[in-house]
Every structure is written in structure tokens, then in C-alpha cells.
């Protein structure tokens, strides 16, 4: 039996399991990027279409998760590209919306954080949420967003600095930059 066939079947099974387990995670990420349940749902569906239709492109199951989230990110880019040709998706800031006043302390906190995340430029929002919600490594985020690891770090830094200004009363004076040694860098 040709080896490639065995690998192909194994890969399809693994992909099947991955998508089965990832749909809610993809939705959560899409929601964190857009704060729009309808749009998030659409993006996830488009991502699943694309993943299923292009599964042959996936050569390494080890990179499958990042591949799936990269498809999601590309679907978001396509969405904004279709909406407005001139503005880069990286620069998009989701408009702040007034949310209904919530009574619970937990909900108030959640709303406050989401409002702060919503104010981030999309490029920073994506990096922050991929790292914080999914626990992706910087190298994986770089793969997903197709940007250098250094850019991941700088966007994360700017994003978290902005969030701190909204969420934590701390001074954000710049500190001297120093090269950082990462344990995992692609």
C-alpha cells in the first residue's frame, strides 16, 4: 500500500477531529476580533468551508491549528477588503458600541474589558487575543498572521499597553528596549 495513502487517511482523521474540536474556539476568537455574533458565525463558517475545500494544502498536522486560525484570519481580511478597499484590515478599529447596562459585577468587568479590546486596532487585537485566549506561542501567531515574530512582539506590547491604560491604573512610561531571548522562535 503506498505510504502517501496511509498518511492521507491519517491526516483526514486528524483534521476531522481538529475541526470538530475547534469550532467553538474559532467562534470565540472571531467574536473577540469583531464583537459581532453574526459576523463571527459567518467567518467561522467560511473558515470551515475553506478548510474542508483546501485540506490538501495542509501538509503537516502539527501545524493544523495554526493553519485553521490563519484561514479564519484571512476570512476576516477578505471581509474587510470587501467592505472597504482602501483601508487595511490591520488598521480597522471596531466601533465602540453602547452595551446595555448590566447589573452583575462580573458582567460589568467583562464589558469593560471587551470595550477596551474593541478599541484596539485589529492588528493588535488579533495578536493579544491569539496569545491570551488561545495561548498560541509567538511563533505560532507569526505563522497565523503571516508576520515576523518581532512584529508579533511589538504589536502585543502596544496592545497590552493600550489595554493597561484602560483597565489598570498604571504609568506606561516607556522603558529602554533590550533584546529579548525567546525560548521558541521560528
Amino acid at each position: 500500500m503506498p505510504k502517501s495513502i496511509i498518511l492521507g487517511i491519517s491526516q483526514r482523521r486528524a483534521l476531522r477531529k481538529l475541526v470538530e474540536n475547534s469550532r467553538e474556539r474559532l467562534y470565540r476568537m472571531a467574536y473577540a476580533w469583531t464583537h459581532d455574533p453574526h459576523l463571527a458565525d459567518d467567518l467561522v463558517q467560511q473558515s470551515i468551508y475553506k478548510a474542508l475545500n483546501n485540506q490538501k494544502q495542509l501538509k503537516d498536522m502539527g501545524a493544523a491549528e495554526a493553519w485553521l486560525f490563519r484561514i479564519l484570519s484571512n476570512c476576516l481580511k477578505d471581509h474587510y477588503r470587501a467592505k472597504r478597499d482602501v483601508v487595511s484590515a490591520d488598521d480597522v478599529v471596531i466601533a465602540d458600541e453602547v452595551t446595555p447596562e448590566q447589573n452583575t459585577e462580573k458582567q460589568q468587568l467583562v464589558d469593560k474589558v471587551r470595550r477596551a479590546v474593541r478599541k484596539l486596532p485589529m492588528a493588535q487585537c488579533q495578536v493579544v487575543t491569539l496569545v491570551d485566549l488561545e495561548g498560541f506561542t509567538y511563533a505560532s501567531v507569526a505563522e497565523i498572521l503571516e508576520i515576523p515574530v518581532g512584529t508579533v512582539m511589538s504589536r502585543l506590547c502596544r496592545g497590552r499597553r493600550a489595554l493597561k491604560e484602560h483597565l489598570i491604573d498604571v504609568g506606561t512610561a516607556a522603558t529602554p528596549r533590550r533584546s529579548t531571548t525567546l525560548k521558541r522562535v521560528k
Partner: protein
Amino acid sequence: MKKDEHFSEEQLNAFVDGELDPEEKSRLYNESAKSPELDMRLCQTRKLKELVRHAYDDVPAPQRPRGPTLRRSGPFGRALVAGVLLAIGATSGYLGHGLISAEPANTSAATAQVLEQPENYLLHVVSGDPEQMYSALSHAKFLLDSADEGEIRRIEIVANERGLDLLRSDVTPYAEEIRALQKNNVVFYACARSIQRLEEKGVEVVLVPDTRQDYTALDRVVMRMQDGWKYEKI
């Protein structure tokens, strides 16, 4: 200069995210023990990370309009997605060549059932381009004509996004062709979500007679692929 100013925000982030190498991590641990300011910066960075995670622990589920067709799964359709992927494996061709036993026992029966079925097709139209629409209709006709003698081949055409224009009675250029295919038992489905979106923009959507609706095109695609149908996106 304060001691903690030796550490940049990038380094603190990398520490909190588990990205620092062991040597630098140890150095930061030691320094933070000596410097309350550095310790506070680390705590704040950790707190921020936790806050973001906490804010998206529970996200609102998409509000789905109720379509006339019963759906087979919960709000996220996980079971259906599992099914579509199973079906992809089952219909890929490889499983029909002595590899069925490689499947778990509970899927072998389903796979065998799929292999015994006639070739049914789901065609998916997403484009508003009249040529693409016509291509879908022509392809459906071809598939009907090419069925083996005595074979009852079932065909469905599902339309969403711009492709919904195919099924809008006031827009479609192909009402007659659709009617002719319907007489040959081709069933047309419109995506209720796409209709809802148009209606939200103030567009009145009137569908070609006998068009059915499913909540989303994906629901239909996944269900049919689970049933062993072939899927073609036009």
C-alpha cells in the same frame, strides 16, 4: 534609574507568556524578588492577560433565525461538522478500497451505507454572476442526464451570499430553467441567514416558488455530506 527599568515591556510580556528562555527567566525571577516595582509590573501584566481571557470565557452565541427545516445539532453544529469530515473521508475514494476496516467500528456501518447509495449531489452557488448561476443549473441538468439507467439520482442546489439572487424571483434570470429542474426533482434551498441579512438592509426577498430554506448553506452542506452526498461549490 530604577532596577526594573532594565526589563522592557517585551521582556515582561515574554515572561508572562512563557516565551523567555530559562536563563533570562531566572534573572527576571531574581530581580523581581528584589524590586517591588518590577514585581508589580509583572503582576499587572499577568492580571491583564487573565482579564482578557476572563472577558471571553463566555461569548454570546449567534442569534439564528428559525428556518423551516429541522436542524440536526445544537448552536455550533459540532456533530454535523464531525459528520461532514467523516463523509469526506468516506467519499474520498480511498475508504472504498479495502480500508474500511481501518475506521472505528461505529463508523464502518455508516461508511458501508454511504458506499451503497446512488451518487447524489449538492451544488452550492455563492456567486451572483449569471454565468456561474447558469453553470450550476447546466451542471445539475448534466448530472441528471448522466445518471445510470434506473438510478434515482437526487440533486439539491443551495444558494447563499450573492448566489441567493439565483432564487430571488424578481432578480433571477433563470426562473424557467429552475422550474424545469424542479419538475425533475431537483430541490432548491435558500440560505435563511442570507435572506435575513438582505431583509435587515431593507430588501424584500421573494423566492422562486417551491424554494425551501435552511438556516445556513453550511448546515445543508454538512447534513448532505453526512448523508454521503457529493458536494460541489460553483
